[in-house]
């Protein structure tokens, strides 16, 4: 990292990123819901509706099932905390956020895994059938998505000789030719499939359903109410924003701030918000056209992603 | 003179039993004499290691390091066997409602048996060795048939017929060796002495010596229990009373192997090590394969121990086949270790047989919970026998494998190791059925004094195992004797 970054600017970048993620998350969900309704011919709620929901929920009373242990209330907190840590150190807006040198792609994946495990434990603590079912399905999908994710990361890290995020982004900025190689395209497709699975979007899991047979993420958070539910919903949206931003930075990195100074940051902010909004709309449009997969067809999807990722790495061998 | 004393002691014990008409006090005298034999053997060993072989009784007896080592082995195991023999004689007296005839016969025959083995080992010349070994066969026939059951009678018949034929073949081998010695210029009176044989061996006729040694291995091999003339061993050892089968399995087999070792020394000088090595390897691998195959579905634990003896004799033969000094030292250590472990196991199986009434493996269940002392000693004995540390059989087997690899017999060592693993799997299966598990529901807890054997019975068994462990871990007492004895065979 060039030493031109002063500590103030580094801290500013991290803070800006955290604010972007905190506010951007619910807004992005609002935007996606608006796009879905428009395509289905409905007017749909305003884009800032999720923010209003969060404010409403924050005001509500906190409840907890009788014989749950301290894991139940702690789970949403850990979930949000892990996403916050990633938002702080990952290069979303600039290539040199606070402690950017330790923003390792593998570490990001394992932080997300910690979040989903804590949520699963919180669900199991409720002692209800829904909690168990949701946790079991979420962990199965998480376990099967892991290989595709890590091998896709391997495919990205090999040309940059390191799995550090800022390093990958700066190297891909320096060699734009890499972005068109088959290796990157295959990795991109694998990444998209895994992101859909991780964040629980259609066709893997329908976030807006309450039908026992099909809900995965929703089943786990059935017992949360008031502020806890707000935290869970916030975490869900933040996780989606972080993943989409990372996707954008890794595959279409132009516009990310590589030098300090407010002007660069402003450009980066606009570029990132634009890219993420674009990706959000594309995802929403894709969701409208596709139906939910049966639970036992999801592993085939993830297996396909894994094979694509392996091909990505092996093609790196053929095309240097 | 001390050699004559060693020989006289067991016979004196026998006479004491006869005089005491089989009563317990006279039996203890016999045990004391065997103990004295052991002590005398150790003292002689120290003397022989220090200032070389000594001879006695007008040249008929001669003790060098190898034969003194065998005296120690015989002394130790005869001490254990006669100590537990008191238990057999006591049970015998109950059966015969107090008539002392049969117990005293039994005591005298055992002491005679020990005496003849000592004669065989201390014999200076080959003819006396043969006569002594034949005499042991004749003495043990009545001991094998002692229990007067149909099985023991059948076992006795097979034992005497097969062993007599085997010993006759060994005599033919001795004749040919005598012939070769005469033609090499040896003086007819002393031609059969080991010393003159070793001195003139390099001038013996090679083809005659090949035939002679083959006959010796086939003949004495019968007494050692090596294939192909081994079939008497499981029957005899399973039907004989426990102390007798302990003595036979523990030391009689190795005394016969002592004879083969002696002749191997002569043959190696005459023909070079090649011939003896190939012959012993063939016989050893045959015995190992046989023992391994027949142990898998064994139903009787005494026969299991007998087949185990065949396996260990096969290992000893393979070790001797390697022939270098290290191998012979390991073979001798294995002889002592196996003798101790096997005799303790046979004696314990005798106690188990008396307590449980059957020698079938399925007939005995959860021994460790119902009779902890007996089950414990039997279990630890099996651990020692299977060649697991800290007992001496592990160390000697390892050194033998090392020697075999050094001599180029690596492939034979691999086959032997495979056989040993097969036997380990089989014996662990059988031991599991006998020792482990919760006691069967039908079992009524026997009163404690019957469950655990009295202390004086347990001490020799635990002492035997402790000795086997001691010589396995500490090199101190035996190292000098082993080196000297190995030099005698593989000079």
């Amino acid at each position: 990292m060039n030493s031109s970054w002063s500590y103030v600017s580094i801290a500013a970048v991290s803070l800006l990123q955290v604010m972007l993620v905190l506010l951007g998350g619910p807004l992005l969900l609002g935007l996606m819901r608006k796009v879905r309704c428009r395509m289905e011919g409905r007017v749909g709620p305003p884009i800032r509706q999720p923010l209003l929901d969060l404010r409403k929920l924050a005001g509500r009373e906190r409840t907890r099932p009788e014989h749950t242990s301290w894991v139940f209330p702690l789970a949403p907190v850990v979930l949000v905390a892990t996403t916050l840590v990633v938002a702080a150190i990952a290069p979303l807006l600039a290539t040199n956020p606070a402690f950017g040198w330790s923003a390792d792609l593998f570490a990001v994946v394992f932080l997300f895994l910690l979040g989903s495990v804590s949520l699963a434990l919180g669900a199991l603590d409720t002692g209800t059938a829904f909690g168990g079912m949701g946790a079991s399905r979420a962990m199965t999908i998480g376990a099967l998505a892991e290989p595709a994710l890590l091998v896709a990361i391997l495919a990205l890290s090999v040309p940059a000789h390191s799995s550090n995020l800022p390093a990958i982004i700066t190297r891909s900025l320096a060699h734009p030719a890499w972005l068109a190689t088959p290796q990157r395209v295959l990795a991109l497709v694998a990444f998209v499939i895994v992101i859909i699975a991780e964040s629980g979007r259609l066709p893997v899991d329908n976030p807006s359903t309450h039908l026992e047979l099909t809900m995965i993420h929703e089943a786990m958070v059935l017992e949360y109410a008031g502020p806890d539910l707000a935290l869970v919903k916030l975490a869900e949206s933040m996780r989606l924003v972080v993943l989409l931003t990372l996707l954008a930075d890794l595959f279409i990195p132009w516009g990310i701030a590589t030098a300090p100074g407010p002007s660069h940051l402003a450009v980066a902010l606009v570029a990132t918000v634009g890219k993420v909004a674009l990706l959000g709309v594309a995802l929403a449009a894709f969701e409208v056209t596709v139906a939910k997969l049966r639970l036992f067809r999801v592993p085939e999807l993830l297996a396909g992603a894994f094979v694509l990722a392996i091909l990505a790495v092996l093609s790196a061998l053929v095309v240097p | 003179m001390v050699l004559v004393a060693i020989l006289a002691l067991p016979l004196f014990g026998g006479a004491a039993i006869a005089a005491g008409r089989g009563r317990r006090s006279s039996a203890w005298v016999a045990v004391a004499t065997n103990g004295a034999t052991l002590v005398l053997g150790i003292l002689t060993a120290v003397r022989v290691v220090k200032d070389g072989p000594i001879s006695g009784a007008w040249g008929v007896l001669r003790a060098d390091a190898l034969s003194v080592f065998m005296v120690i082995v015989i002394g130790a195991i005869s001490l254990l066997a006669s100590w537990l023999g008191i238990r057999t004689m006591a049970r015998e007296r109950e059966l015969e409602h107090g008539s002392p005839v049969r117990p005293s016969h039994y005591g005298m025959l055992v002491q005679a048996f020990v005496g003849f083995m000592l004669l065989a080992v201390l014999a200076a010349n080959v003819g006396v060795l043969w006569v002594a070994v034949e005499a042991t066969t004749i003495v043990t026939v009545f001991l094998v048939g002692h229990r007067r059951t149909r099985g023991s009678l059948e076992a006795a018949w097979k034992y005497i017929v097969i062993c007599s034929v085997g010993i006759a073949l060994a005599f033919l081998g001795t004749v040919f060796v005598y012939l070769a010695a005469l033609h090499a210029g040896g003086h007819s009176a002393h031609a059969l002495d080991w010393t003159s044989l070793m001195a003139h061996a390099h001038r013996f006729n090679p083809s005659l010596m090949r035939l002679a040694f083959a006959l010796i291995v086939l003949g004495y091999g019968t007494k050692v229990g090596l294939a192909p003339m081994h079939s008497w061993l499981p029957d005899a050892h399973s039907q004989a009373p426990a102390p007798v089968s302990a003595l036979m399995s523990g030391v009689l087999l190795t005394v016969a192997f002592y004879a083969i070792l002696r002749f191997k020394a002569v043959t190696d000088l005459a023909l070079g090590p090649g011939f003896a090595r190939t012959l012993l390897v063939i016989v050893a691998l045959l015995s190992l394969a046989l023992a391994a195959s027949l142990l898998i579905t064994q139903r009787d634990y005494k026969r299991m121990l007998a087949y185990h003896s065949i396996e260990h004799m096969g290992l000893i033969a393979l070790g001797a086949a390697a022939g270098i000094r290290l191998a012979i030292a390991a073979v001798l250590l294995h002889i002592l270790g196996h003798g101790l472990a096997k005799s303790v196991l046979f004696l314990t199986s005798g106690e188990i047989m008396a307590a449980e009434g059957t020698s079938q493996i399925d007939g005995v269940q959860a021994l460790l919970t119902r009779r902890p002392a007996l089950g414990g000693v039997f279990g630890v004995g099996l651990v020692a026998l299977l060649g697991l540390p800290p007992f001496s059989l592990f160390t000697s087997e390892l050194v033998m494998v090392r020697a075999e690899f050094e001599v180029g017999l690596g492939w034979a060592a691999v086959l032997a190791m495979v056989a040993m693993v097969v036997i380990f799997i089989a014996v662990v299966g059988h031991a599991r059925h006998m020792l482990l598990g919760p006691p069967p529901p039908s079992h009524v807890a026997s009163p404690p004094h019957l469950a655990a054997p009295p202390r004086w019975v347990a001490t020799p068994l635990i002492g035997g195992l402790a000795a086997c462990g001691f010589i396995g871990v500490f090199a101190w007492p035996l190292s000098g004797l082993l080196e000297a004895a190995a030099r005698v065979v593989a000079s």
Partner: protein
Amino acid sequence: MTPALLVATALAGLAASLAGAVTPDRLRIRVSTSLTIGACGCALIAGINILHSGHPAVVHTTALMPLSGFSLALDRFGALFVVISAVVGICALVFRLGYIGHGLGSRTASCILPLFVTTLLLVPAASNVTTFLFLWELMAITSLLLVLTDHAHRGEVQVAAQWYAVMTQLGAAALILGLVLLATRTGSQSFAVIALRSAHLPTWVRSTAFVLALVGFGSKAGAVPLHVWLPRAHPEAPGPVSALMSAAMVNLGVYGIVRVGMGLLGGGPTWWWLLVMFLGALSAMFGSLHSATSRDLKRLLAYSTTDNVGLMLLGVGASGLFASTGHRALAVVALVAALLHVVFHAVFKGSLFLSASSVQQATGSTDLDGLGGLLQRMPVSGPIFLVGGLAIAALPPFCGFVSEWLLLQSMLHGLPSSDVAIAVAMPIGVGVLALTGGLTAFTFAKAIGIGLLGLPRTDGAERATEVRRPMWVGAGLLALLCLVFGVAPFLVIPAVVDAAGVVTRFHSAGALTHGWQIGLPGVPGMLAPGLLALGLLVCTGLVALARGLVRRSPVRLTEAWGCGRELQTARMEYTATSFGEPLTRVFEDVLNPSRDIDASHIAESRYYTEAAVIHTSLEDAFERHLYRPADRGFQRWGALARRVPNGSVHRYLAFGLVALIIVLVVLA
């Protein structure tokens, strides 16, 4: 000074074993355990001394071990394993002070346990073939006897012990042949001389010795084809013994492979290490899959040991592969990753097994379908198991994450490579690492979720109370180490780097930049586990504060939502079987679970069932396809052989006559 400590360890162990056999009942456990802890202490000090100073401690005497002599030489590589065994030993023995039951109180058990611990401490120090094999087999037989302590109460202990004895003997036979082949071919017993002369041996000798050593040590470590005893023996062994076996004895298998493969033979051709990686990958996937779908807690932990051994072998294989293709620096990094995983696995597996034994003692069973709600009932052992579970699932604040990350890094930096073997092996290695990581996360989410959280499913779990203090102190110590090593791995990494350097004989000082952030030299980007943990702590605090500020009213306890039903019972909860059911269905063809339903119909009509019982069982694939047929063949051969000696004296004499004729024909 350190040689004296080694001798002190041995003597203290023997004294403890003697004390265990002799002292009266009341004092027996306390005296023998404290003496053994003393032995572990001596070994620990000796190990740390050597790790620090680097001069090996040599003890040699010909008074022991007839015809071969007894010699110990502890170098840095061996010292690392001695330290691990000592730490796990101390914690397990502290645990044992409070542990009642499972037959450990008997005289034989308290006499044999010190012997077992002493052999664990001395095996890495053995420096000649006979001493090594003596200690190795003594360790095997003592652990077998300890597994047998409870044979009088439960039938399956016998079966487990038989499997264990047979598999260990197979391994030991291969080991004896391999090491003796090496010793005789190089003309000396001592490891140092073998290491020097092994380079000139013919390739077939080196390859045979390596493969035999791989079989021998692989069977002890629990690598796949030879792992069958591990999920049977560990659950049956008493608590502290199963912890010692899983956390200390299994490492010695990996120690052996590295010592023979890299130390004695100095590396070898590529196919050696591809074989090790293949075994590692197979063990990792097979172990993690079976632990994800197993129902018994200790069986789950045993299978996860096979899985973690697979990961260690992957690291060792990768290191050997790099060394054989010339990338010496990368080889050291991969070996450091593997050894670090050994250290961390010993710590979290030790705490998991100890806390699982606490659960077994508190509730009376380790069947996950019968546990639940233990976090509230066992306020100390519960969190310890939670910490252990999160650590083994490689989640950030704990130590599992660091070693998993380093394994991934060592495989990543192998690419891009012109060598086809590396280019293919590394991506598949990362794939296997990822799948096993995912499955382990699934497994321990299940173990923690079903075991500790929710409603207690049986009254055994209902009535569970916290175990006695020494038990959770022992387990807690290891859990604390999980956290400490997770946050500050620099406490361990330098020692591991030196140890790796010693065994690969390559100057390894600069191989890994270690301070509080870990990274490879010349590669941008590093990992700062301490920083991540701090960040997590701060963020959690902030979020909790925010939630507290927004709504200060007390939390209202409500009835969990049951679709309008009033009564919420434990029967409605998910169980371990149902939790693992989706995964079993996904991997149906690998696991092929057997599921048979027998329904009894009412007399009148077949269409109405009176009662139905379902039996599902998951048999180990290797057991069904490899070991059962071998056993059937074994018995058939036995039955065949029995027919030859049919008892007739004529047949026996005929054998003799044929032999005589052969002798006459051949020789005369």
